[in-house]
């Protein structure tokens, strides 16, 4: 592991970092509860991965592309996506930019170059290579960053993405959050490779394993990889070693496959606690300040939830929109039939 020492950013900025991490954690806690209360259909928590996500997001510039999986809520927050837009997607309501088409956590925000996520594991990794290639072709100095898990390193498109990026020296920063688990499969059963980072060797570019629970290490590694990519030296694979403290999703019960002792050991390495202790230690923040910060983010979330719950579902005929730019006649027939059904009361939106 590459250990990096000392703060990576000035203290006022680190306070913002801490707040973003705390916001991500607090959204998580609320959403897990909302799901249990039946107010949200489903939720994928990121608890434990805040430093990895905020650290990587913080190191990127405005024009950079993010190709997320489904766990990247704190990346979206770091990119500046307003919390209400995120909540609207979770609720699939009429304010959802994706028009209620996807399960919770499958966000897409064009204005933030945060590409629409899908469920199939790994497919976004190669998209980042195409985006990076296209950006360079058009003369933009930006990178593309696919986010993926340890499990995804076994997927087809991890291979295609790594291989293509190497061949074309595409400005890509491959960001793997090794959170130790792919649902119930532990990291050591995913691959016999000694690390995930070492896989980069076979593709001809560097792979680095870093402490993914240390904001500074993540931030520095991504900055470095980004600079390298923009110098035309090609991609880097970053393996951020972290831990998924919660269940895989609200449909999962991790007690079936992992021990309380393991969880406890990782809880002692909590990324938020770690940054907080550092800032308190340097006198940048008091325990009371942190409490205030927590209250602020909870209030922010509360009002966003209230707003999201006021919104209704997307308009019924919108299920026929956006399949094609120019839809074929059979779909137009179905839309007309549907509108008649609504008129006749056969279906009640």
């Amino acid at each position, binding site marked *: 592991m590459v250990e990096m020492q000392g703060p990576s950013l000035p203290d006022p900025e680190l306070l913002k970092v801490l707040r973003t991490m705390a916001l991500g954690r607090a959204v998580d806690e609320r959403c897990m509860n909302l799901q249990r209360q039946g107010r949200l259909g489903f939720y994928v928590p990121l608890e434990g991965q805040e430093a990895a996500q905020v650290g990587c997001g913080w190191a990127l510039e405005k024009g950079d592309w993010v190709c997320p999986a489904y766990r990247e809520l704190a990346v979206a927050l770091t990119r500046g996506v307003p919390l209400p837009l995120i909540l609207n997607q979770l609720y699939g309501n009429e304010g959802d930019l994706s028009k209620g088409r996807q399960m919770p956590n499958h966000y897409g925000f064009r204005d933030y170059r945060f590409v*629409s996520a899908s469920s199939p594991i790994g497919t976004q990794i*190669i998209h980042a290579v195409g985006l990076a290639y296209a950006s360079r072709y058009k003369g933009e100095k930006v990178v593309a960053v696919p986010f993926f898990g340890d499990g995804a390193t076994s997927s087809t498109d991890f291979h295609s993405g790594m291989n293509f990026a190497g061949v074309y020296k595409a400005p890509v920063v491959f960001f793997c959050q090794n959170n130790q688990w792919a649902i119930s499969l532990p990291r050591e059963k995913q691959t016999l490779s000694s690390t995930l980072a070492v896989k980069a060797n076979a593709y001809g570019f560097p792979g680095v394993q870093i402490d993914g629970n240390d904001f500074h290490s993540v931030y520095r590694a991504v900055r470095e990889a980004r600079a390298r990519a923009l110098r035309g030296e090609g991609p880097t694979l970053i393996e951020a070693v972290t831990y998924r403290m919660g269940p895989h999703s609200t449909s999962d019960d991790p007690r079936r496959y992992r021990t309380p002792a393991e969880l406890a050991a990782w809880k002692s390495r909590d990324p938020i606690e770690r940054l907080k202790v550092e800032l308190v230690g340097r006198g940048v923040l008091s325990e009371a300040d942190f409490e205030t910060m927590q209250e602020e983010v909870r209030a922010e979330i509360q009002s966003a939830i209230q707003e999201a719950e006021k919104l209704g579902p997307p308009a019924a005929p919108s299920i026929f*929109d*956006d399949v094609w730019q120019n839809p*074929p006649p059979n779909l137009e027939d179905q839309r007309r039939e549907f509108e008649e059904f609504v008129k006749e009361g056969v279906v009640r939106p």
Partner: protein
Amino acid sequence: MTELTLIQGVNQALHQAMKKDPDVLCLGEDIGVNGGVFRATDGLQKEFGEQRVLDTPLNESGIVGMAVGMALYGLKPVAEIQFLDFIYPAFDQIVSELAKLRYRSGGQFPAHVVIRTPYGGGIRGGLYHSQSTEQLFASTPGLKVVIPSTPADAKGLLLTAIFDEDPVLFMEPKRIYRTATGEVPDGDHRVPFGKARIVREGTDVSVFAYGAMVPTAFQACQVLEKTGIHAELIDLRTLVPLDIDAVVRSVEKTGRAVIVHEAPKFCGFGAELAAILAEKALYSLKAPIARVTGYDTPFPYTLENLYLPSVDRIGRAIQRTVTAG
């Protein structure tokens, strides 16, 4: 107008599209230096350079996935899959990503990729260089499926595909790459999607075909003409969007339908055509609908000519349909 082969029509469309718009890029296996194993991309890399004509590693999921990324940016990539038979590693990228991006993002992230791929039998290619599996793609919402049968359509439909806004699977009938010849307009020739072509008019029976089956079905119609049967032959050109009006109108006129394709019969595209006719033209039908297709087996090697719909098999089906009922 210039007399070209079908593959020259493809090549000319690619040249003209790349010349017209710097956002058009081509990528695929062996398409650059080698000009493609069938030479469809001959001369492109020389003219437009390696930045725009990419020889890719051997990975179909990578080719389509990379094209999706380029299209997300706003480029107009044209990906080549060397044979339709090798598209399955990319099936996930096509079905889960390419076809769904516009919908799943509420219109925020459309991805317009054209995938060109040679398909079909009759070239002694065995199981893995011969298949026609258009139905797998035609039943995927969000994709367009286009199959030309003439050089002019190859050029005109491909240019339309490249400057369309939806993802297109462009299937090229490789058996007639060089045997289909004809006059092709020299300029920016565009053939609209969703407009079937009446290859020959007739009054007794409607024959529906596409791609490499069009010339075979045409021959069958010509033979039958001598026996007094006036068959109408319709080249569908685009399966998605389908020219439903043209299909229904023809059968309303003739009262009889014969559907021809190379793909296996069971759940083939002909099943959709037959269902449409049952829904929209049942009272015009004077005889059962006939389908002349490949068999419900994998594609054979030595006996491929027995597998593929032939002039005789199509002719017999037409004759029976005309005399039935």
